[in-house]
């Protein structure tokens, strides 16, 4: 693929994923667990990938980082360009140079992602020294600076603390400090606040937003929490069973949700406003990989599903601007009076 010259750098997405498909099987007939996923994120932007367990959001991010063991993971199709380089074409060595440097990741569980045997300062320092030729002392200085940046109280003492001596919120801030130590161009954050209390979550989200504004880091934030999405996203991709079912700006998604899954998801979340009846539910459960529906993957759970939904996967329909939805029937208000299906299986 041709890429424009360096002068167009600012307009070129930091990450551009096209038609990415992945499966965990050599069987050609096995369904793709991530299917034809495309998205991009530009400098200083935040893309949120939303979905429930098993929708493929974490697998996608791990694949991009080159952190999925292959086999069993098999990339079936697609490209992922990061700063113009095809991530899937890089050697393990080239990837290792980018990871933790230009491209960083924050994981959900701060306790298991930090090494319990090394101090916080050593771990942040290591990620600095791995990628840059600096003295141990300077790395320590920089690590201290990072701890200040993520507003850890008494950073001088905390530098020599072990992970178990820190609270969950502080550990997550250490993870962020480590991920940002080399000023990455792109940060992939997988449920970075899910394990945290609400007041700590607010602190961490504000922190990430501020740092992003300062450094222009692009961010792909993976979450199941629509509140977090409303708070930080510029663009949103809703994933269901390995596919992006709806994509748009954050305003598109909240003001004009199109896909029945997006609608069901939004109705299933309790509001902090005054109670209004029972929650909407999405009946059934996520299909297992062996039993992936062949048409629209949401059809068995969708209250609107018709025969064509079961027969064929819907193509993307452009609503307006970047807003697109993969549904034969959207918007649902144009669907005629309820047609009941004979069997509920």
């Amino acid at each position, binding site marked *: 693929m041709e890429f424009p010259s360096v002068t167009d750098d600012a307009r070129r997405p930091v990450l551009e994923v096209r038609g990415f498909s992945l499966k965990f099987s050599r069987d050609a007939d096995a369904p793709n667990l991530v299917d034809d996923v495309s998205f991009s994120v530009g400098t200083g932007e935040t893309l949120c990938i939303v979905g429930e367990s098993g929708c493929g959001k974490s697998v996608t991010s791990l694949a991009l980082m080159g952190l999925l063991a292959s086999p069993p993971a098999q990339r079936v199709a697609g490209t992922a360009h990061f700063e113009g380089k095809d991530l899937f074409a890089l050697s393990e060595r080239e990837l290792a140079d980018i990871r933790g440097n230009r491209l960083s990741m924050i994981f959900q569980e701060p306790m298991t992602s930090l090494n319990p045997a090394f101090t916080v300062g050593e771990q942040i320092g290591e990620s600095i020294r791995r990628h840059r030729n600096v003295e141990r002392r300077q790395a320590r200085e920089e690590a201290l600076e990072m701890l200040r940046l993520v507003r850890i109280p008494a950073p001088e003492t905390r530098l020599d603390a072990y992970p178990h001596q820190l609270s969950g919120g502080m550990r997550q801030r250490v993870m962020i400090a480590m991920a940002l130590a080399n000023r990455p161009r792109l940060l992939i954050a997988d449920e970075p606040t899910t394990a945290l209390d609400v007041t700590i979550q607010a602190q961490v989200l504000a922190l990430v937003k501020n740092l992003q504004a300062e450094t222009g880091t692009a961010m792909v934030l993976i979450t199941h929490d629509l509140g977090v999405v409303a708070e930080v996203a510029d663009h949103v991709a809703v994933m269901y069973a390995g596919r992006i079912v709806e994509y748009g700006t954050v305003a598109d998604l909240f*003001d004009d949700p199109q896909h029945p899954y997006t609608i069901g*998801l939004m109705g*299933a979340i309790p509001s902090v406003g005054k109670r209004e009846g029972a929650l909407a539910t999405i009946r059934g459960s996520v299909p297992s990989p062996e039993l992936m529906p062949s048409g629209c993957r949401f059809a068995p759970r969708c209250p609107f599903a018709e025969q064509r939904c079961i027969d064929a996967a819907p193509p993307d329909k452009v609503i307006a601007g970047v807003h697109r939805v993969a549904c034969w029937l959207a918007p649902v208000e144009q669907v005629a009076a309820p047609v009941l299906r004979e069997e509920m299986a």
Partner: protein
Amino acid sequence: MTTPTEPTPHAPTPHAQPASQPASHSPAPIIEARSLTKHFGGTRQLFMRTPTVYAVNEVSFAVQAGETFAIVGESGCGKSTLGRLLLRLIDSTDGRVFYQGKDITHEQGAPLRRLRREMQIIFQDPFASLNPGMTVGKIVGEPIALHGLAPDSAGHRERVAQLLRTVGLQPAYANRYPHEFSGGQRQRIGIARALAGEPKLIVGDEPVSALDVSVQAQVINLLETLKQDLGLTLIMVAHDLAVIRHMSDRVAVMYLGEIVELADVDALFDAPLHPYTQALLRAIPASSPHERRAKPALSGDLPSPTAPPAGCRFHTRCPHAKPHCAEVRPVSERLDDGRQVACHFWREIQNAGSGAPLATSVSPKLIERLAIYRERQTALASAGD
């Protein structure tokens, strides 16, 4: 709200409905804590004492039959410990627990076992709380056998099947093992097990927080239906404020082992009085991108429960703290509407305009489409019956 609900004719097992109460303003609460206190540690080990964790400190409140009462707070605030103290799963250091007006603080043996049947718990982690070596039928059936609730083995099997149906599972699942089920299904099994003893009171310790959004909605709706149908009293120990707003009648907010505010759910969310409640509500993420606003973050970290601050425990992080707060512990003040708040200066803070209600907005298109979605789903569900 707090009146006991009559079981509907369609209730799967109409049992344990609270005795019809006279139209009095203060019916005997189903469970009551008086100055309940729990300290962990502080024991001597070889040459040193382990630090004392002041987990729950002089907590008092009463829960009425038929109510959904929420205990909310952040990690380490003592909410789970409090839930276990109420059920006598752990013993208190001080204070007393009353069940239907009777002091059960020191109950032992057979009377305690009887209590255990009437007071059940649903745990947070559906993966850790079910014995992997037991079939679902055995897990759910154990309380039935233990308390002799079925006349014979046929009756036992029928009761297990009935319980599984009640929580929306197929009776045939009785022969399977927990690992064969998803998180949501396991939580349903945990609920069926809790219902097996025909309880009057259920404590849910973060019962939905490990579940995906759509599954969480299913389990929340199930708990609400069961509560209605079986006339249960529900105590929800949780940290998710939206879940609490949705489910509860009254809410107790805990901070470092103490209840700082207790109020009806709408009053609490619309006009929080305690500075900690205000901070907690302010930290809730926006409900739409149009509601984004700067959140004045709560400063500092939670102090260690081994060394809680003197005076008001929140004074080290409170934006309104004055010297007095560091010296004198505030007593919980009871207002006219039954609301309680433990803050020296709540009136001044209220007058200063803190604690504005949360802005929430839902787009008209979502409201319209959600209505169609629900309509469709209801039509499908009735066609499937």
